[in-house]
């Protein structure tokens, strides 16, 4: 019982990171039709920024989180402007550019941090919340989850209640129709990439005190984000959030009761099965003819 509840909590907290990373990927793919393979590396840059500024140079933690988000968003904007935009007509082109960026960012991280062991960031919020004498949640994790959830809520508000969010969704649905209505689709791409990258950066920054930071940490992030994206439906942001929660719970439970590798393998197999049965994902629209 105790283990069950603890596992539940572990899973839900983990879902916050999954959702932040996946939502960015979905947003970028939805609006620009580019698979951003460097998305995991954007997360990594977020984590590295916190390590460099906070752990190495004593900048206050919250300030470094903000800086990391801004920095990663800038990288995203540069990628959009100089790589993805010239590649608009070639869907594979954007993907390949992002693979190039992936390498460059990994090397940049290695140069900043040096070859060596994984970097560690001491958690700024110490202590553990103990509930009912059995549930234990470190404050750092609680904080990260709260920030992630709030950010997702703000994003939802932005996309559904604000005009610019509406325009973003219009471009995601039909680029041509949207530009006929006077929506500047290049501008929308920049916003999507900026917001998507910022969320990846935030995920990384929040993860920093909780994980091993190294130049290759993006690999696991992108696998997870892919699974979540496909399961949730490629075009669907609510789908990505729901899939994040489901997948995080699934992965956490399988890890707890079986093994972590089995959890990842079965996640991948489920993803392939969903591609077969319902390529549009659990919440995506069926592809019409």
């Amino acid at each position, binding site marked *: 019982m105790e283990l069950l509840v603890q596992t539940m909590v572990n899973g839900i907290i983990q879902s916050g990171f999954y959702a932040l990373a996946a939502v960015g990927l979905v947003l970028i793919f939805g609006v620009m039709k580019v698979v951003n393979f460097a998305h995991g590396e954007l997360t990594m840059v977020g984590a590295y920024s916190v390590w460099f500024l906070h752990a190495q140079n004593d900048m206050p933690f919250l300030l470094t989180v903000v800086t990391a988000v801004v920095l990663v968003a800038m990288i995203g904007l540069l990628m959009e402007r100089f790589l993805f935009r010239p590649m608009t007509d070639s869907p594979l082109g954007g*993907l390949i550019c992002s*693979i*190039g960026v992936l390498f460059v960012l990994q*090397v940049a991280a290695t*140069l900043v941090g040096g070859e060596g062991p994984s970097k560690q960031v001491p958690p700024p919020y110490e202590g553990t919340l103990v509930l009912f004498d059995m549930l234990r949640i470190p404050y750092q994790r609680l904080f990260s989850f709260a920030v992630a959830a709030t950010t997702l809520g703000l994003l939802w508000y932005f996309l559904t209640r604000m005009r610019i969010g509406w325009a973003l969704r219009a471009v995601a649905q039909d680029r041509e129709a949207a530009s006929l209505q006077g929506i500047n689709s290049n501008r929308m791409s920049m916003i999507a990439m900026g917001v998507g990258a910022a969320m990846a950066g935030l995920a990384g920054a929040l993860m920093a005190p909780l994980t091993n930071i190294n130049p290759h940490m993006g690999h696991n992030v992108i696998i997870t984000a892919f699974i979540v994206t*496909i399961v949730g439906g*490629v075009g669907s942001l609510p789908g990505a959030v729901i899939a994040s929660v489901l997948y995080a719970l699934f992965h956490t439970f399988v890890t707890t009761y079986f093994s972590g590798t089995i959890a990842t393998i079965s996640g*991948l197999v489920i993803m392939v099965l969903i*591609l077969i049965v319902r*390529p549009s994902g659990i919440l995506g629209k069926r592809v019409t003819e």
Partner: protein
Amino acid sequence: MLAKHRTLMTIVLILAGLLILPHYLKYHQQDFLIFLVVNVLVVASYRLVTLTGEWSLIHAVMMGIGAYTSGMLTKFLDFSFWISLPLAGVVAGLTAALLSFPLFRTTQFYFLIGSFAAGEAIRLSWIHFIRPFGGTSGISALPSPELLGIDFLEPIPYFYLTLAIVTACLVILYRIEKSRIGLTLHAVHWQAPLAESVGINTWNYRTLAFTTGSMFVGIAGALKVHYIGTVTPNQYGIGFMVFILIWLIVGGYKTFYGAILGVIILSILDEMFRELEVIRPAVYGAVLILFILYLPDGLESLPQKIASRIKGASPKGSHS
């Protein structure tokens, strides 16, 4: 006719050069040459898969399937290399044929991601199921081929073996592309609905390309591991897959030669710039970006581009 003769002459000259070359190389460069020749087959077989316009991310894992198949057959069941080599191709091909059922229900982005997921699931299984796959350390002490008492642990005999097998495979791949089947694959790529309308079963042809390409890369996998003597799951991860992509794109995926050119030039550059150490991947990344932005048809299109620049005329469209 003259052009054909000239091509033939060029190929004969290249082969002759390759026959002499290892004798003038340093020992570790001979190894490098063996791996390079194997990688030529890897990228040429990948090109066959991409002919239908579907870019898979499972090719590296298919190579691993060939490597594991041959490694396990020779090591655990005492198969001869000469039997396990073709079987490596068969098993990789069969795996691809099986995976076609789920994967080709999708196309493009979905296929790309689906193939990536399927590949990672296979690769993680090698890591997870220590019996029989040996986990992360894989399977080592694989036997060398045996034939007429030739010592295939030495690089030069193994190089000749590799060269012979890879050349044979390349001839087959080339003939497939130039045949009716190759034409049909192109048709499936450029206009799938039109191809369907004249009776081409596009699913069949996508599967055919995927299966055949995987078969040849399975053979490449077997060739490589029986020289290294060790097969590990990390040799066939997304990292190697990305290299395959880079070779193809930088070389030029539109022609048969482009891909081969890509792997040769990039591998040689890579070996020369070993000293760059940590910077190396970034150089690769930058090269990849620059090519896709400024030379999307790859190195293979460079001479033509330069020529047209000099003449000041726009390049005349041509098609192979």
